[in-house]
């Protein structure tokens, strides 16, 4: 059936859905397993849980399967799903200082207490296509990896011993200015937003922001003439424990398990306080999963929004209203919808204006 713009709408939609399924499966020997996506497309899953704001790796994998690998569409599916879920309890504040770290680096200090841990990263691999992955046997490959790993780096070894944060060291020496006063904790999924928004809303919006959009904005802020090159005081990736208050005993807590997060603290410019003290300002980034570039971008943008300036990244409405993947994708893609009425209306105005212009020229010629 041909697609006639607005008639046969019902039929057209059904057909489109069926064709979608056909294209998804037409050349498949067997359907993708959701668990395989979850376990082997780690960064894609991390990106989706981070941008959707829902820590549900398996659902994220399902969404990716349904969206045929489009991370924006997958994040959208998860968001829409999440908005229907009941909010039963609120977790207690997480302390990333207690993180079970798998990776931890500092570009500020060579030697940090507890030392740097390079951990899993592609940063220092050569970007050469590895053709052997074409015919990989998972179990055998894993076994060989484990044999080659130095004993102390065996991931099965528990690193639960917490590391003191670099920022805490700076703070102890009075080098770091405390964050701007927190004015109310809001929940951006439940509370209405009115600009200017409190800091807690900024952090939440950025934490769910689109990786690409945030990287681009952060990059722009590093390149402009007033820019100060931020330094990564610490980037850490690892697991933090989620706990809730035990409902029957006021001072006990229940553990719900762990979530993986990336936390970044950057040192940006320094500021002069009212009392004349000069201190560093910290930028803070935290995302679900291992999303290092996004977490750094978040720390940069967060700090930009806390300081005054004239560049786009100092403008909270500009940054926060455009970094959300679901909203930006929705608005741009809505241009595919018919706009016949508005166009007709504009056409009418144009014709009237043409008529007036012609009359005016006639007058002048007379």
């Amino acid at each position, binding site marked *: 059936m041909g697609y006639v713009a*607005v008639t046969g709408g019902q039929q057209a939609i059904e057909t489109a859905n069926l064709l979608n399924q056909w294209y998804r499966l037409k050349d498949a020997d067997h359907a993708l397993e959701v668990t395989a996506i979850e376990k082997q497309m780690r960064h894609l899953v991390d990106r989706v849980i981070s941008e959707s704001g829902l820590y549900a790796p398996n659902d994220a994998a399902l969404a990716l399967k349904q969206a045929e690998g489009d991370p924006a569409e997958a994040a959208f599916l998860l968001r829409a799903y999440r908005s229907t879920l009941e909010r039963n309890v609120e977790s207690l504040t997480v302390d990333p200082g207690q993180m079970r770290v798998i990776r931890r680096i500092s570009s500020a200090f060579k030697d940090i207490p507890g030392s740097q841990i390079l951990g899993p990263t592609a940063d220092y691999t050569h970007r050469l296509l590895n053709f052997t992955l074409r015919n990989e046997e998972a179990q055998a490959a894993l076994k060989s990896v484990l044999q080659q790993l130095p004993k102390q780096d065996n991931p099965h070894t528990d690193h639960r011993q917490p590391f003191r944060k670099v920022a805490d060291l700076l703070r102890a020496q009075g080098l770091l200015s405390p964050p701007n006063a927190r004015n109310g904790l809001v929940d951006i999924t439940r509370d209405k937003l009115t600009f200017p928004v409190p800091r807690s809303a900024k952090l939440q919006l950025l934490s769910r922001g689109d990786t690409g959009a945030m990287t681009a904005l952060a990059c722009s802020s590093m390149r402009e003439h007033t820019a100060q090159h931020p330094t990564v005081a610490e980037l850490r990736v690892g697991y933090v424990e989620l706990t809730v208050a035990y409902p029957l005993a006021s001072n006990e807590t229940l553990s719900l398990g762990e979530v993986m997060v990336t936390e970044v603290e950057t040192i940006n410019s320094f500021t002069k306080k009212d009392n004349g003290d000069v201190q560093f300002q910290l930028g803070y980034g935290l995302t679900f999963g291992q999303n290092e570039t996004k977490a750094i971008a978040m720390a940069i943008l967060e700090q930009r929004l806390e300081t005054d300036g004239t560049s786009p990244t100092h403008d909270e409405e500009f940054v926060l209203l455009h970094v959300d993947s679901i909203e930006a994708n929705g608005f741009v893609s809505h241009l595919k919808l018919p706009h*016949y009425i508005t166009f007709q*209306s*504009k056409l009418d*105005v144009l014709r009237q204006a043409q008529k007036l212009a012609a009359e005016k020229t006639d007058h002048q010629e007379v």
Partner: protein
Amino acid sequence: MAMHTPLKQTYNYAFLDEGSKKEIRRATLKAVAIPGYQVPFASREMPIGRGWGTGGLQLTLSLIGDGDTLKVIDQGNDDSVNAVSIKKLVQACTNVAVTTDAEQATLIQSRHRIPEVPIRADQILVFQVPIPEPLRFVEPKEKKSKHLHAEMDYSGIWLRLYEDIVKWGKISIGADYPALAHKRYIFAPSPIPRYDLPKLHQAEGLFLFGAGREKKIYAIPPYTDVEPLAFDDYPFEVEHFEGCSCRLCGSTDSFLDELYDEAAGQTFYQCSDTGYCRKCRERGAQHGK
């Protein structure tokens, strides 16, 4: 598709949880109490795209109940793909009856049009709104436009209209023509044609506006003054259809879509409100008999 059956089991009635629906209704009540004032609300993520009618959809879902009959139109058309899609979603998570007859509906969700038959006191028309802020094209910042509304400082938007007249000989706004609600707030009527704007003035029905991405709800309650912005000597004008009539029903008193017949090489017109057009044709057929 088969996914609609489980939707009823896995999701709450009308998709949103009851707490969310209540919050949206509270915002709506405030909007009704202050005609034209944009009430911020915690817009939920919906299973259709942001910018594809999520604001209108949230209003519809927060209001709908088993006794309702729903009509959804896009560009005046019940069968437009997006209208069909929204209608399917609401049906899948409720059980309401749907109709294409504006007079049968209790709740109408619309994008870009107001049906030709006036909305009655027992009906609600819900609009999907892309940009709820009429001052956005003169003041890009929300923080500032809020102040301008609060102080009724509207000379900026008027100046824009003046400049339009200087430049084009007339105000060049097509659809989404700004109007003053009850002598207080300038509001954006959503991208309806100017042709539809007078239908909001002192109307019997309730008009609700939902902007999902921008997270705002506003309303034009029954019997509200709605005055399109215009200068004394440059009055407000609707779209011109002089000498045109609907090719299907012959109507000369409805908003017409302009179409081009490639084979015949000529322009023809058709009612944009397809429900209205069908009724006109049915009535015509009866008279003919």
